[in-house]
C-alpha cells in the first residue's frame, strides 16, 4: 500500500468519525432540565408541528398547522428501536392543531371540523384517506381559529372554539374602542363545546356550550385523577389601547395567563374581566368601564393558577407515568409557546413548566422544567426564538414529548436515575 492511499484512508476515516460524532451530537437537544433529566431530538423539520399524540407502541401522530407536501398529519415510527423516529408517513388534506387518541380512534381537527380515523390493533390508521367527520361548521374567522380537542371517559369530546376577537370591542384591537354590550360572539365562540365522540356530522345544535368566557384555549387536558377537564387560557392583548390606565410596561405584564378547572357552566370571564396576578383578583376590562383597579363583580370563576402575561400556553398534559420522580406524578406540564406582546420588556415563555398537583389541585407554585428551546438567552423579537414549544404527549415508557411548531422539531425528555 502506498503512502498516498494510506493518507486517503486516514482522511476518509477521520471524516466518518467527524460525521458520526456530529450525528450523535445533533440528537442532544441542549435543553436546560432538572438534575437527572435528558432531552433528545427524535424528529426534525416536520413543519408547523402543533399537538401530538403517542400510541401505546410508541409511535407518534403529529398535527400540522400548514400542509406539508399536501398533508396535515404525520405518522412517525421508530422501526429500528434506536429511539429516533426515522420513518414518516403523512395523510389528511387539512391543516389544524388538535389531535388525540382514544378508544381505538385517532381524532384530529381542522380549524372548523373534527374528524376521526379507526385504528387497527397496532394503533395504525386503517383508512388514512377516509376519515369520518364527526363535527363540522365550527366558526373560523381567522383569529384564534385552532380547535383543540380532548376526550373524557364517558364518550364525549371537548372542543375549544376561540373568540374571533381580542376583547369584543366594537372595532377589534382599535385604540379606545369600547366593548360590545352582551358580547354576542359568545353564542358561537369564546368557550368550550362538548359533543358526542361517536356521532357523525354534528354541529352547534348537537353539542352543548360546556363552558364560556374563554377568549382562546389551546392547551387542554383531561385529568384522569379527578376525572375533569382543565384548560389554559390565552389572556387578552393590548391593554395599552387604553393609555389612560395602562402604559406599555403595565400592558406587557397584564393580564395573567390562567389555568382553570372546567366543569359544566364554568365561566372564564372574558371579555368583561381579566385576572390580575398582582392584585390577585378579577378586574373589570377597560372596554366595559374598567380602570385597571375596579374589581369585576359579575359572574366568573377564579383560575386555579396564574402565570406571567402573554406567554401563550399551547400545551397541557397531566403526567401519569412512572418514569419521572414521584413529585411529577399527576402534576401538570405546560408548554408555553412564548410571548410576542411584552415589548418594551424582553419576551417571556418559550419553555415548558411544571405544576405539582394532587387530587385536582395544585400543591405548589409553578417552576420552569425545560428551557432553552429559543436557543438564545433573550428574545426581544419573536423571530429570535429558534424553536417554540407547542404540544405535549406522554410516551408509553413515561417519557415526555414536546413539539415545536416553528421548525417542526420533536423533543423527548427522559429521566435516568
Amino acid at each position, binding site marked *: 500500500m502506498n503512502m498516498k492511499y494510506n493518507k486517503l484512508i486516514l482522511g476518509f476515516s477521520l471524516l466518518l468519525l467527524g460525521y458520526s460524532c456530529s450525528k450523535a451530537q445533533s440528537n442532544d437537544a441542549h435543553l436546560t432540565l432538572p438534575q437527572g433529566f435528558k432531552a433528545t431530538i427524535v424528529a426534525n423539520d416536520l413543519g*408547523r408541528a402543533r399537538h401530538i399524540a403517542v400510541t401505546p407502541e410508541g409511535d407518534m401522530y403529529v398535527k400540522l398547522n400548514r400542509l406539508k407536501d399536501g398533508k396535515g398529519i404525520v405518522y412517525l415510527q421508530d422501526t429500528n428501536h434506536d429511539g429516533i423516529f426515522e420513518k414518516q408517513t403523512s395523510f389528511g388534506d387539512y391543516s389544524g392543531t388538535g389531535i388525540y387518541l382514544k378508544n381505538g380512534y385517532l381524532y384530529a381537527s381542522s380549524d372548523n371540523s373534527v374528524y376521526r380515523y379507526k385504528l387497527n390493533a397496532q394503533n395504525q390508521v386503517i383508512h388514512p384517506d377516509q376519515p369520518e367527520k364527526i363535527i363540522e361548521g365550527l366558526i373560523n374567522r381567522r*383569529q384564534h381559529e385552532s380547535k383543540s380537542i380532548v376526550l373524557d371517559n364517558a364518550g364525549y369530546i371537548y372542543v375549544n372554539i376561540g373568540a374571533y376577537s381580542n376583547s369584543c370591542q366594537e372595532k377589534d*384591537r382599535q*385604540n379606545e374602542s369600547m366593548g360590545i354590550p352582551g358580547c354576542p360572539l359568545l353564542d358561537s365562540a369564546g368557550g368550550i363545546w362538548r359533543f358526542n365522540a361517536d356521532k357523525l356530522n354534528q354541529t352547534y345544535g348537537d353539542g352543548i356550550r360546556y363552558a364560556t368566557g374563554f377568549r382562546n384555549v389551546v392547551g387542554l387536558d383531561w385529568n384522569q385523577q379527578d376525572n375533569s377537564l382543565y384548560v389554559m387560557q390565552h389572556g387578552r392583548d393590548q391593554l*395599552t389601547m387604553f393609555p389612560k390606565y395602562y402604559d406599555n410596561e403595565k400592558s406587557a405584564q397584564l393580564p395573567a395567563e390562567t389555568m382553570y378547572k372546567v366543569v359544566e357552566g364554568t365561566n372564564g370571564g372574558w371579555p368583561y374581566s381579566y385576572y390580575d396576578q398582582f392584585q390577585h383578583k378579577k378586574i373589570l376590562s377597560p372596554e366595559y368601564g374598567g380602570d385597571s383597579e375596579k374589581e369585576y363583580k359579575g359572574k366568573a370563576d377564579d383560575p386555579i393558577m396564574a402565570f406571567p402575561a402573554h406567554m401563550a400556553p399551547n400545551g397541557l398534559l397531566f403526567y401519569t407515568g412512572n418514569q419521572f420522580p414521584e413529585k411529577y406524578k399527576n402534576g401538570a406540564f405546560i408548554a408555553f409557546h412564548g410571548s410576542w*406582546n411584552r415589548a418594551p420588556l424582553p419576551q417571556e415563555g418559550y419553555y415548558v413548566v411544571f405544576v405539582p398537583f394532587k387530587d385536582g389541585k395544585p400543591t405548589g407554585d409553578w417552576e420552569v422544567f425545560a428551557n432553552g428551546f429559543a436557543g438564545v438567552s433573550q428574545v426581544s423579537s*419573536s*423571530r429570535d426564538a429558534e424553536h417554540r414549544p407547542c404540544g405535549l404527549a406522554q410516551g408509553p415508557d413515561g417519557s415526555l414529548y414536546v413539539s415545536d411548531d416553528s421548525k417542526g422539531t420533536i423533543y423527548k425528555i427522559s429521566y435516568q436515575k
Partner: protein
Amino acid sequence: MKYLLLLFAVSIAALSFSSFSEKKVVSFQQKSTPMTRGKVIYTQYCLPCHQADGGGVLHLNPPLIKTSYVLGSKVTLVEILTKGLNKGVEIDGDSYTNPMPAQNLTDQQVADVLTFVRNSFGNKASAVSAAEVKAIRAKLK
C-alpha cells in the same frame, strides 16, 4: 515664531470648535428626518405586532421584510394603515390570523412610518411624502 504658534493653536481651537458645533447641528437634524420620526412612530404603533426586527410573529402578524406590500404600491400601503386589514394575507406560504386595526395617524406620520418601514429591516424602496399620503387618502372611500 511665537506669534505663528499662537495663530496655529487658535486656528486649531476654532476648527475643533466649528466641527463640534457642526456635530451638534447634525444630531439636531437627525431628530427630524423622516427616518428618525418614522422609527418613533413604528416603535409606538407597529412594533408590538410587527416586532422590533420587522419579522412579525409566525401565524399571527406578518413580517414587514421585503414583502410585496412593503415594497409595492404606496396606495395599498396608505389604505392598509388608514383602514386596517383583515383578509388574511399570504406571505411565503404562511398566513396570519390577527386583524390589523386602522391606525389613527396624520398624513405626516403615515408618510414617516412608511418611509421608515420601506427603508429598514433590509428593505429598500422610495420614500413616501405627506403630500402623497394626503392625495391617496382623498381618493379612499
